[in-house]
């Protein structure tokens, strides 16, 4: 048994990236997360958390254009059904205002609700599990400081058996490797920063990597684009393949794009990515945007055509 002292510190221990999410492991880590610990959100944490929030693409799926900021309702159309972004404002009844830190960390790292239900992987905990503990707590501080909005979540439209949440446990066994981001010591600090920003925060692969039949990410095709992007859109190939990816973009092109939404050919990006830039990426520091660009440039070019034949501006 563990001592009560083990729960006293708000330490978020790194989870081994290799460990699979067996039920035992899941329960173990849920136990490991400190329970009932509440950090008073100081202004610094909120400011740092805002930056994390921007780097996480402004949690764009949780806002709609007409609706209130982060109060949910955005329809995310996927091949598995239509999901609705949830209310993550600090409203106690309809948002996440009643959550404590470990509820938040459990959701982000393990994809489990405070009540122990498994979240659908449309919520990219598969990426957020890579986040550093401090970044998670800072993000929580920021989310706790936004305007609370009372708005009930809309039920997802998923057909059985996909809608059956206990099955998600099996899905997790097959497709989910919890654990904090691990630096690659053979790469530069900039590369590692870019990898962290892209993998853990920006969660680029959640849309730009195609999924297998079960909805797991096909890592052999990482970043090679998906015809089944969210909201019924194409998520382009962003590997450095010259013909089918963004191989002709240099680092400055990527940086500029993430700031402006403007592609090197002068066309502007649309859909969810435009939102993600608008609420998220354009606020990032140049060195961070450059790190993301360097990381993307370092990916293995994969030839994969996802655009429509008559695609034009």
């Amino acid at each position: 048994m563990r001592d009560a002292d083990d729960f006293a510190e708000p330490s978020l221990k790194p989870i081994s990236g290799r460990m699979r999410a067996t039920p035992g492991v899941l329960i173990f880590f849920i136990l490991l997360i400190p329970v009932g610990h509440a950090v008073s959100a100081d202004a610094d944490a909120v400011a740092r958390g805002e930056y994390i929030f921007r780097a996480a693409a402004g949690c764009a799926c949780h806002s709609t254009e007409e609706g209130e900021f982060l109060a949910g309702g955005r329809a995310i159309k996927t091949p598995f059904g239509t999901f609705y972004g949830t209310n993550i404002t600090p409203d106690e009844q309809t948002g996440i205002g009643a959550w404590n830190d470990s509820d938040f960390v459990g959701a982000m790292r393990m994809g489990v609700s405070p009540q122990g239900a498994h979240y659908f992987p449309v919520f990219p905990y598969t990426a957020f599990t890579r986040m550093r503990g401090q970044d998670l707590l800072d993000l929580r501080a920021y989310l706790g400081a936004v305007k609370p909005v009372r708005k009930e979540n809309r039920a997802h439209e998923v057909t059985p058996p996909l809608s059956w949440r206990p099955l998600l446990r099996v899905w997790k066994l097959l497709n989910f490797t919890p654990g904090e981001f691990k630096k690659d010591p053979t790469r530069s600090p900039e590369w590692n920063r870019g990898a962290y920003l892209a993998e853990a925060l920006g969660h680029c692969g959640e849309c730009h990597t195609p999924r297998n039949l079960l909805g797991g990410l096909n890592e052999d095709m990482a970043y090679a684009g998906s015809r089944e992007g969210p909201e019924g859109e194409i998520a382009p190939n962003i590997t450095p393949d010259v013909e089918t990816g963004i191989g002709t973009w240099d680092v400055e092109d990527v940086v500029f794009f993430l700031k402006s939404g403007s592609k090197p050919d002068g066309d502007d990006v649309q859909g969810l990515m435009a939102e993600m830039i608008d609420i998220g990426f354009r606020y990032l520091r140049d060195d961070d945007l450059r790190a993301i660009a360097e990381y993307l440039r370092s990916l293995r070019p994969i030839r994969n055509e996802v655009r429509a034949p008559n695609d034009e501006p």
Partner: protein
Amino acid sequence: MGFAKKVSAVVLPAGAIALGLVAAQGLESAQGIIKYRKSVMKSQAGHIGAIGAIAKGQVPFKQDLVAHAVALRSTSKMILEAFPEGSGTGDTRARPEIWTEWIKFEQAARNFEKESEKLVQVAKSGDLEQVSSQFLAVAKACKGCHKPFRKKKKK
């Protein structure tokens, strides 16, 4: 057969044919308009891409900034006329809201004209920092129209 019936037997089909012709003609000119406005849009994208390349420092042609900006300003004034009523069907991503919410559409287009004008002024200064930041405003203005009024790309 009464007179009225006779008349309608002749007039109605003729009318239908005439209407069909008018519709076909309308459609044809709509296709012409659609092609034309795509050309206008593409030329704008071309200048925006070129300004971007200069602003990013990828090419040294700073002396061409003003020319690109002026071209963008000129074409920005062609947008509204390129969306006559009836040009929303065919090979186009124009949304019907353009015509049902014309005032909003017009505002968005005018805003793009305004930001393009500012870009000309900034380009004349030759200050790349300023050009970059005004470029962001122009890109935002593009989006101001595209987001509400342009359909998503086909899959």
